[in-house]
């Protein structure tokens, strides 16, 4: 069924194509915010047969995040055109007439993995790890160096905050999510929001594009250690780049079970390399603030998933599972608050 619908859609989008066929449609696990499907397409253009792998990202009935898919599509498209390793974006459909729900399609990057566990423990990737770590910093530095004004990002991300408003803007954003989605009292999260308001970081040294989910586990890497595609841009916004630095350091992404950032490199080494690559100083107070807020944000995202499940908007077991993760986030939040 989906094969036929996709073939019809591609035929519509590729008017010069003949005999469009779609095969190998399968759903990729993970992706708690949108359904992710992989498929192969073949068609004829003139006397040439074309084949291409695609990724479909379709809105679910409910998700962890209530983000706009067109923002994700447009920011990924802009990043791709600016030379950031991002899959090539192809089509955005805000209506549900083709596949029941809105979606977008991008080109698939083959021969890659996303799994952090494979990266840190599979012998096949042992030689690739140092390069992945270096590229992780270089790609983040490239994102933070993008000329967002020249790229016109404000036209769909909204106006950039002033340097002293970045932190407050994010506190308010995630506080509202907690207000909207919490199913029960949240003493740790609400106390943390009060704490954050009283411990604002220094103003951002510069305003940059913030990926807002940049971490080990959210990029495609190959066996040579090259990062081929940065994924999951749905929370991207303009703001303080230290937000991304702190997010990458969250305990939740310490996949090796120790203090290493993402399980792949020492935290101090990561911070030093980032400073070298960007010229942005990682102020310890700012890092601490954004790390605490990152944990609150993650807990808020989980609350959204829990509400979706409780209200019957979804039956995805991953949403139930992640909601069970908040006690560990609360523990980390209290540690960072020093209580």
């Amino acid at each position, binding site marked *: 069924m989906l094969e036929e619908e996709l073939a019809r859609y591609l035929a519509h989008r590729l008017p010069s194509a003949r005999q469009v066929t779609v095969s190998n449609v399968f759903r990729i696990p993970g992706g708690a915010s949108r359904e992710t499907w992989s498929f192969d397409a073949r068609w004829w253009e003139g006397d040439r047969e074309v084949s291409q792998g695609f990724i479909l990202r379709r809105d679910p009935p409910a998700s962890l995040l209530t983000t706009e898919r067109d923002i994700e599509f447009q920011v990924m498209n802009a990043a791709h055109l600016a030379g950031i390793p991002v899959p090539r974006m192809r089509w955005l459909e805000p209506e549900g007439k083709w596949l029941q729900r809105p979606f977008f399609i991008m080109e698939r990057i083959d021969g890659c993995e996303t799994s952090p566990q494979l990266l840190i423990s599979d012998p096949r990737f042992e030689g690739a790890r140092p390069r992945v770590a270096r590229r992780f910093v270089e790609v983040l530095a490239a994102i933070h160096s993008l000329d967002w004004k020249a790229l016109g990002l404000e036209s769909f991300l909204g106006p950039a905050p002033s340097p002293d408003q970045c932190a407050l803007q994010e506190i308010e954003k995630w506080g509202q999510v907690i207000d909207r989605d919490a199913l029960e009292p949240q003493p740790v999260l609400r106390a943390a929001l009060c704490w954050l308001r009283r411990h604002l970081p220094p103003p951002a040294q510069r305003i940059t594009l913030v990926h807002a989910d940049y971490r080990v586990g959210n990029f495609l890497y190959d066996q040579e250690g090259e990062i081929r595609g940065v994924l999951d841009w749905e929370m991207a916004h303009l703001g303080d780049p230290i937000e991304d630095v702190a997010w990458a350091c969250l305990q939740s992404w310490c996949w*090796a079970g120790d203090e290493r950032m993402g399980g792949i490199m020492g935290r101090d080494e990561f911070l030093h390399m980032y400073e070298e690559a960007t010229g942005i100083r990682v102020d310890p107070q700012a890092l601490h603030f954004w790390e605490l807020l990152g944990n609150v944000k993650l807990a808020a995202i989980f609350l959204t998933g829990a509400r979706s499940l409780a209200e019957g908007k979804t039956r995805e077991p991953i949403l139930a599972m992640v909601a069970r993760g908040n006690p*560990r986030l609360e523990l980390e939040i209290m540690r960072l608050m020093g209580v």
Partner: protein
Amino acid sequence: MELVRLLESVVLELGQEVPSLYGKAQAQFAFMLLETVAAELDEAVHCLYHDIQELRGLLAQVQEAIARIPQDHPRIASLQQRLEEALNEEIGHDLHLHRLEGLHRRLMGALEVFLCLCEEVMGDPRYEPLMPLRAAAYAHLRRVAVRGWTFWDALSFRERILKEREALAHKP
């Protein structure tokens, strides 16, 4: 409990039969959820009962302490009202989970307002009587949070959770 174990074995069997990667992942998530339920079900009433008793003791002290601080902070009135509502209800002999959960929720609601107040007045000497209770409140929440870890221990936080448990075991 037997029913949960039965469901686990059904999910495992189905997971092996499902051909797609997505289906296998779903079965795995469902199994982990059931494992969490199995781990928590047996102690649910016991834990809630214990938490309620501890919270009632703590919030009764908060109620006394707020009589000794300035009454002009905008959160005070809301805190007093929530404390009255939560503490008026005795734990009693009805140990149905939904009732205990309701009672616990009201106590946690009062605790939420109390901690927000504490964070907003931190450093102001007029509110000093609240600070030992703030520390006690966070200690309670830490104990509850550590208990809440189940399958997460097996995923990526082994070292830290072991440290946390060890530290808590050595605290009076």
